[in-house]
């Protein structure tokens, strides 16, 4: 058994595709039309054979209040690894990305949390 896909639920797949590729820098890997929405996955250009990120449409109504509650508490949906949180924060800040947590150290980890504009907060993290 392998871990091949992880997902993030988004309120608008096309908008999410633009944000996750043009702003965060991921690349589209698969795009398969489904009955509702698309099977739309991304990979990191640093790991093209790595785990895919599925931009999952919010087809299941109860998911919406769950997503909203997480965001209101400032809890990230998931976390991505970066080599340098400070540099990535500066880069994304210049692109107009909203952060709910600026680079913050917690023991041996540096974290920051950004708004993906599609209903989620996303953490970026680095072991220092």
């Amino acid at each position: 058994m392998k871990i091949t896909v992880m997902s993030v639920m988004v309120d608008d797949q096309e908008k999410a595709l633009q944000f996750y590729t043009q702003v965060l820098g991921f690349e589209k890997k698969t795009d398969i039309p489904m009955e509702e929405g698309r099977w739309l996955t991304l990979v990191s250009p640093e790991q093209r054979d790595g785990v895919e990120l599925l931009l999952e449409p919010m087809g299941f109504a109860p998911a919406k209040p769950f997503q909203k509650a997480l965001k209101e508490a400032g809890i990230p949906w998931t976390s991505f690894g970066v080599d340098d949180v400070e540099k990535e924060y500066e880069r994304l800040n210049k692109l107009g990305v909203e952060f709910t947590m600026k680079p913050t150290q917690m023991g041996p980890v540096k974290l920051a949390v950004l708004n993906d504009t599609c209903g989620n907060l996303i953490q970026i993290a680095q072991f220092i």
Partner: protein
Amino acid sequence: MGSELFYNQEVQRLDRKLYPRKEIINRVIGSKQFMDQNFHTKLDLDSVVGKTFLSKFHYIRLFKSCYGITPHQYLISVRLKNAKELLLKDVSVSDVCEGVGFESPSSFAGLFKKFTGLSPSSFRSKYKKAILEK
């Protein structure tokens, strides 16, 4: 939105609770960064521990509580990560082994297979092919 959020407060609370002795934690972080910079040399645990002025047992326990793995496992992971990059640059397997600090080609090959599931040469063939096909 900002520091008043539940999550942000929890991160600060956990930082205070889990890592109260900043000066000690900074020594562990320094030792990890020392391994990041010197993995290609003949590093051993004693030389890493020595820089922290902690007892070996205490250091290993602290390192594991910070990074989730032992310093030895971490050093192997850094060496293997760099080995993968060199293999994709067509450096010979024996030069990769020496270049990332492993002492013997057999222990390098064994660890590489254990962690990646492939031998060094199979890894190179598989991923070079994937890059060329892209």
